[in-house]
């Protein structure tokens, strides 16, 4: 029986070729998109992306072939992906703006992955990811400014602080659900924002200024990064840092998704009462989802604070939470690849289509409604779990 369902043998090279082709073409398209100056070229690229998606939707065999190639050559695909991510800054023509967009997109990818544990996996409406992001940023910045804690220590410390707040936020979730819980998370976000805006310690509306750049082995992240005589803009340091963060988040999310925890969250999403009847400790898993979300968001917040060097309460408003939520919904709930694609697309689009960057919030709102009405499963729907395959 084990062999009956095995995929047809041979063509191992074909599979590798597909993997390489998909990853390289994807990276090349992203490069074009990042460097595009003309909005018409941006629209052409978007149309091409849309056409590929439609083609995949129309020809499920093609999609299955690609998915199978990736599943079979997982190691090669991962290695090639890491290699591409390493080389990527070198092909951006030393554009610090393109690198900056990459850093921001990666931070949002981490945030979207964080929210995905709740919104995607467990269907818990959390409008406070932006607040957790802010708590992480402020906690690390305060540590760095007041106690001269280095970035590498502030990073885990801020994540722990954000997690504690995540737990606190999760506590009401023991008793409330759905709309009530959504209100609690919105309220939490507003409370955090008002506190940041008014407390003396956090610098009020002016925020915190002069957060020092991290250092590693004597190399300051504020200085350009020279590799083999090729000099990259200083943003490249943070590009690699946030790339590592994304990698950690992906591994984290993948492991959790495949574990009992991921299954329990999906059970919660399907039917909370039924899940409880199956012996799942729903309260614990709900609180856990809040804590995990806050933990990753705290990480992202720390990197953001040290990257920009200046934070104010307005970086962490309710609208940031809504933006992150848009990314998860548009990308595809509970699909790691989809969430990342959603984060990258929605970070880059408003930047690239300058003409409507003023309308970005309107655009996010319309995107959410349109996706929920037309394609609630997002660009990349959740896949069925594969066991033992």
């Amino acid at each position: 029986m084990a062999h009956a369902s095995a995929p047809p043998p041979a063509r191992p090279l074909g599979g590798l070729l597909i993997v390489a082709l998909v990853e390289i073409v994807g990276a090349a398209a992203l490069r074009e998109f990042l460097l595009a100056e003309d909005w018409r070229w941006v629209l052409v690229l978007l149309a091409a992306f849309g056409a590929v998606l439609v083609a995949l939707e129309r020809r499920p065999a093609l999609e299955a072939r690609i998915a199978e190639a990736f599943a079979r050559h997982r190691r090669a695909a991962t290695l090639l992906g890491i290699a591409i991510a390493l080389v990527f800054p070198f092909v951006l023509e030393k554009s610090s703006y393109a690198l900056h967009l990459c850093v921001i997109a990666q931070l949002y990818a981490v945030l979207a992955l964080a929210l995905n544990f709740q919104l995607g996996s467990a269907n818990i409406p959390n409008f406070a990811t932006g607040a957790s992001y802010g708590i992480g940023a402020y906690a690390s910045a305060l540590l760095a400014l007041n106690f001269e804690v280095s970035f590498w220590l502030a990073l885990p410390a801020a994540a722990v602080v954000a997690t504690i707040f995540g737990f606190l936020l999760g506590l009401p979730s023991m008793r409330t659900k759905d709309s009530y819980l959504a209100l609690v998370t919105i309220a939490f976000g507003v409370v955090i924002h008002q506190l940041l805006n008014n407390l003396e310690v956090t610098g009020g509306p002016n925020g915190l200024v002069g957060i020092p750049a991290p250092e590693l082995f004597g190399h300051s992240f504020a200085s350009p990064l020279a590799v083999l005589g090729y000099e990259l803009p200083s943003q490249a340091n943070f590009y690699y840092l946030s790339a590592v963060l994304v990698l950690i988040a992906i591994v984290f999310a993948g492991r959790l998704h495949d574990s009992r925890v991921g299954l329990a969250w999906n059970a919660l999403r399907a039917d909370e009462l039924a899940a409880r009847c199956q012996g799942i400790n729903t309260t614990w898993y709900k609180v856990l989802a809040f804590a995990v979300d806050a933990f990753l968001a705290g990480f992202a917040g720390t990197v953001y604070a040290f990257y920009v060097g200046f934070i104010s309460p307005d970086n962490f408003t309710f609208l940031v939470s809504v933006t992150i939520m848009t990314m998860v919904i548009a990308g595809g709930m509970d699909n790691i690849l989809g969430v990342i694609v959603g984060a990258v697309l929605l970070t880059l689009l408003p930047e690239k289509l300058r003409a409507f960057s003023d309308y970005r919030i309107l655009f996010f709102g319309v995107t959410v409604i349109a996706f929920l009405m037309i394609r609630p499963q997002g660009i990349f729907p959740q896949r069925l779990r594969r066991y033992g395959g």
Partner: protein
Amino acid sequence: MTDLVAQQILNWLTLGSIYALVAVGFSLLFGVLNIIHFSHGDVSLMSPFLALGLVQALGAGAGGISSPAAMVAFAIVAIALTGLLGVLLDILIIQRFRTAPAMMALVATVALGIVLRELIRHLFPNGSNPHAFPRLVTGDAMLFGFRVPAFNATAILVAIVAVSLLFLMLNRTRLGLHIRAVSLDRDAARLMAINPGRVFRATFFIASAIGAIGGLFFSSYAGMVRFDFSIDIGLIGFSAAVVGGLGSMPGAIIGSLLISGLDTLVQATVPNGASYRLVFVFLLVIGVLVFKPAGLLGRTVTEKV
């Protein structure tokens, strides 16, 4: 001293009445639809902008913004238009989420609120800036033997009248009977030859129109209106409905009075309280929800698999 206390009590009642006008809409819509219409606050705050826009476009001859009579006339038109807007939103968008999971409707209406807010910002002339909004009623009036500004008296009276009419409508008319039937059991109501679609649209009209009155008084009380006031009024109105128990009209009123009471108290006693007021309000909300998850007067629903 007594003057100060009387003044605060008046503020409390005025604010409570304004919040109640928005909160009953949340509660009514939740009772009938069983989903949260998160953009209700944004719909409610459409009315001051509609009134201002109408006055500027059509009312120049009648004295424009400085003439209370013209303002009141256009405010009434704005209330009706806001009611229709609620119906339109239901037909265009919210209707699609009737049978969807509650989470989807929730996220969609949050996004809808953002869209409405941004539309005001981009379409209304100078939409990002605050706009002066006149007092709809000026002068003094006698209320319970006290001499009070006529505006506060009107706000309180209008709220009492509007909510009483809503009660009468729900309990004494055929439409009210239909609304209650649909909120109890949509399918059974359909079997009794009640068209749920019509009931939904009627509910949307009533809730949005009452909310619009609240929005008008809110801006009139503040003396100005800005596109993002709706976050305030929407969150507070929703919180009031939740504290009182969603679906319960008396609950919404009690919740509004509680929240506005806390709001007034904080602003009067805590130093720099105005900038912290939402912190206290939301701590109250979270506190109530932790101890009474269905709100003070809400019915606890027993779930079945």
